[in-house]
């Protein structure tokens, strides 16, 4: 099999690419749209907005989610906000500035044309959401309010209290519901996609398992859209929902879709530190808190005094000290790395020294408690509920945690993977954030893909693809279905001694230690070996229990963990291959004397896209060179 990575980025000046491309995209006749069946997997911001928009255009859509309702996809948990180049604050923002901030924040490891398009579309997303009734924060004059996020010096983030993701998702969910009610979308909740059906090289359907009765079914279509989110749960402990997984994109990868930059995983600086070995997940505290909170640790190692007893002169506001112009609002990768550093020096606070302070004392003194409560009330409440401490009285304790994955399935400018007909949108693709995502950009990307890009580009595919009639009795469909059923049966038959959860925890610890906030060649090689051993042990000794034809959470989990055990190896290989540091990918061997990431544009100014060759076999590396016409990659400076 030969794999070709054609980005299909249009020519011409950067600012005109998308418009020109749109003019050239082929169209499907309105009367023919209903004859095309499109499958959308996942109902987060990207999936729900795509399914609704495609249905509005007249396509026949089937939409799937593993949750009991499409409204519960994990986009719902995004707190802080969504960026848009509206320049409502008159502070010098523009499409180009949003583009530049995003590409620089990503440490020059993303495609220029994609990022520019994202910035261009951003303003229309806000228009769309307001029209849907998303209750964004407003000023007293009735117009929309903004706040600042990390890595930028303008105020361009729109928000709905600390529940922006929830409100944007409900907007998309309601648009989706309208189409379900109209009979234009058929919704399959509590249904998990377990494979992609590829017929004659084209994605023509999926195999699913009904999570209530265990029934395995085939669904055929003219095109498949994956909007299945990220894989942070490879670390076991992350800010992702418990159900988030790599299964959909991993199974697509095994069917021929290239997986790009899997080692680019974002560790978010402000999460509530774990309290014990029972911990099931970690909770994020929004980056927006860094607008008013100051991050510090004691100057002295092992200082055990209560934070209030430590005088100003014995505190180290290390971000403000090292990065005076961005201060507490440096990008996430830097904030996380510096936090790890001060904790490794023995200056961390709280149990085990795994924490730094995020202090609101000065902001409360300046603005009053009421103003702070208005901005962050629900976040403070959430913190207090989990830790039993009040951030109004004592600083929050925070520590970095896995949060978002920039890597994902490789897609071209049309958001299509290396399997014709298989489109990938939102966090599931690799496209826009390079090696580090800026805050409030995930919501922007998910909705840009779903509302304003895919609906055009998928039409171009459908208009020209040769799509012979197909039904579920086709041998390729039946064979894929049989393989899925077989895998479930095998998981149940191992009947070993260890629960699925113990394997997942062990894998997570290993990945956090070896392929987390900092990495080195020796550690990665060791991790690859250990993952292979753990994977073998899993298939020898896992105990799942229960039946296949039943609501069986252990079986769902077993399938997901078995995929994580294959995927984790690729992640480490990718990290090992990339002999440089960039964004969140920090290889200890490659750093400046100040401890900043040292990129190697000459050798690694590319996207690393991997081709699957078999479980336990060395995958094939393909590269897509990144060309920069409008910006000049420089060493990122936030000082």
């Amino acid at each position, binding site marked *: 099999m030969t794999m070709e990575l054609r980005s299909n980025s249009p020519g011409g000046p950067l600012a005109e690419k998308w418009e020109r491309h749109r003019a050239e995209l082929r169209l499907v006749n309105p009367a023919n749209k209903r004859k095309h069946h499109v499958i959308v997997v996942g109902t987060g911001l990207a999936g729900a907005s795509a399914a609704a928009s495609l249905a509005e255009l007249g396509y026949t859509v089937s939409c799937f989610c593993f949750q009991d*309702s499409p409204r519960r996809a*994990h986009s719902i948990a995004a707190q802080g906000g969504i960026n848009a180049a509206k320049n*409502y604050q008159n502070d010098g923002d523009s499409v180009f500035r949003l583009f530049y901030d995003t590409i620089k924040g990503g440490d020059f490891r993303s495609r220029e044309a994609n990022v520019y398009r994202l910035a261009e579309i951003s303003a229309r997303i*806000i228009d769309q959401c307001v029209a849907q009734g998303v*209750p964004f924060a407003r000023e007293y004059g009735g117009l929309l309010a903004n706040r600042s996020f990390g890595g930028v010096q303008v105020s361009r983030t729109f928000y709905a209290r600390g529940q922006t993701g929830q409100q944007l998702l409900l907007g998309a969910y309601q648009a989706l519901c309208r189409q379900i009610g109209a009979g234009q979308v058929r919704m399959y909740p509590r249904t998990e996609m377990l494979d992609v059906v590829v017929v004659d090289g084209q994605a023509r359907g999926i195999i699913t398992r009904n999570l209530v009765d265990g029934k395995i079914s085939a669904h055929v279509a003219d095109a498949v859209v994956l909007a299945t989110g990220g894989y942070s749960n490879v670390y076991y402990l992350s800010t992702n*929902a*418990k159900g988030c997984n790599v299964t959909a994109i991993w199974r697509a990868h095994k069917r021929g879709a290239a997986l790009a930059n899997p080692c680019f995983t974002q560790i978010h600086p402000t999460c509530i530190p774990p309290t014990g070995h029972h911990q099931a997940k970690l909770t994020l505290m929004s980056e927006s808190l860094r607008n008013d909170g100051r991050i510090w640790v004691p100057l002295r190692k092992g200082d055990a005094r209560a934070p209030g007893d430590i005088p100003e002169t014995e505190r180290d506001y290390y971000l403000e000290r090292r990065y005076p112009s961005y201060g507490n609002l440096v990008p996430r990768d830097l904030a996380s790395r510096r936090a790890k550093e001060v904790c490794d020096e023995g200056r961390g606070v709280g149990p085990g020294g795994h924490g730094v302070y995020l202090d609101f004392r000065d902001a409360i003194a300046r603005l009053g408690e009421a103003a702070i409560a208005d901005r962050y009330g629900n976040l403070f409440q*959430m913190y207090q509920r989990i830790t039993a401490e009040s951030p109004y009285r004592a600083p929050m304790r925070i520590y970095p945690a896995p949060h978002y994955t920039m890597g994902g399935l490789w897609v071209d400018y049309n958001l299509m993977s290396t399997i014709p007909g298989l489109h990938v949108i939102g966090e599931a693709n690799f496209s826009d954030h390079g090696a580090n995502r800026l805050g409030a950009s995930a919501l922007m990307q998910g909705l840009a893909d779903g509302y304003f890009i895919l609906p055009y580009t998928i039409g171009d595919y459908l208009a020209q693809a040769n799509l012979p009639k197909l039904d579920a009795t086709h041998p390729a469909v039946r064979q894929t279905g049989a393989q899925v059923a077989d895998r479930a049966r095998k998981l149940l038959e191992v009947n070993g001694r260890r629960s699925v959860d113990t394997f997942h925890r062990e894998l997570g610890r290993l990945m956090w230690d070896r392929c987390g906030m900092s990495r080195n060649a020796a550690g990665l090689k060791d991790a690859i070996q250990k993952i292979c051993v753990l994977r073998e042990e899993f298939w020898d000794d896992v105990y799942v229990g229960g039946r296949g034809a039943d609501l069986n959470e252990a079986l769902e989990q077993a399938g997901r963990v078995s995929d994580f055990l294959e995927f984790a190896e690729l992640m480490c290989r990718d990290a090992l291959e990339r002999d440089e540091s960039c964004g969140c990918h920090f290889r200890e061997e490659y750093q400046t004397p100040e401890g900043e990431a040292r990129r190697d544009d000459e050798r690694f100014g590319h996207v690393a896209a991997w081709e699957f060759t078999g479980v336990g076999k060395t995958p094939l590396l393909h590269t897509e060179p990144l060309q920069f016409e409008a910006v000049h990659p420089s060493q990122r400076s936030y000082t």
Partner: protein
Amino acid sequence: MRVTLHVWRQAGPVALGKFVRYDVSDVSADMSFLEMLDVLNQQLIGRREEPIAFDHDCREGICGACGMVINGRPHGPQRATTTCQLHLRSFPDGAELWIEPWRARAFPVLKDLVVDRSAFDRVIQAGGFISVRTGSAPEANSVAVAKQDADLAMDAAACIGCGACVAACPNASALLFVAAKVSHLGLLPQGQPERASRVVNMVTQMDAEGFGACTNHGECMAACPKEISIDFIARLNRDYVKAAVRGKAHAAQGNGGAA
């Protein structure tokens, strides 16, 4: 600390259920309620018994997936807190807890503590939206919205669709859930054109799903993890009466003209 649990176990939608007692020791006050159930489930798996099925996902109190009745109260004893955000420090050492699924005709039990809440989705499908085609929206700041209206709309929009209101209501009414959506959209200028048809269509669907009537007990508000106010029910009633007066023919406009 240790706790004694009596958990509702039910093998399937038509099976008979019963309470089963479990003693769980070695749990910590810092654990969330669901982490305690995780510990118990790991023990059950170790003994080759079937783990307890319960819905959960984000574990941050926002997705609305989790929910169980703990000692007679949906989401347990702590105000404004979902089950996943409830911590064992809310209970005394040695506490005895009775754990049940939401109980309502419109929410049939699927297994153990898992119920089918798709009735809520169908109520939204009947009209819980503003009909705006992707791409047709005007500039976002072209319509000003008074801050107090936007804030009040946000209070209503904070609903997570968990169903605690239904579980708490002696009539298993879903009116707080429906009122929250009707109010959220009805408070905004963008929601005005469909205001009348929306409330009529959603209430009609709510009744068809088998939810009970509201008789102003207020239990829903007390159980709501997002503290949605029953003032929104008054707002819904007003909108509903107005729509009825203006005539159903005018009000019930199908699905808002979806494609």
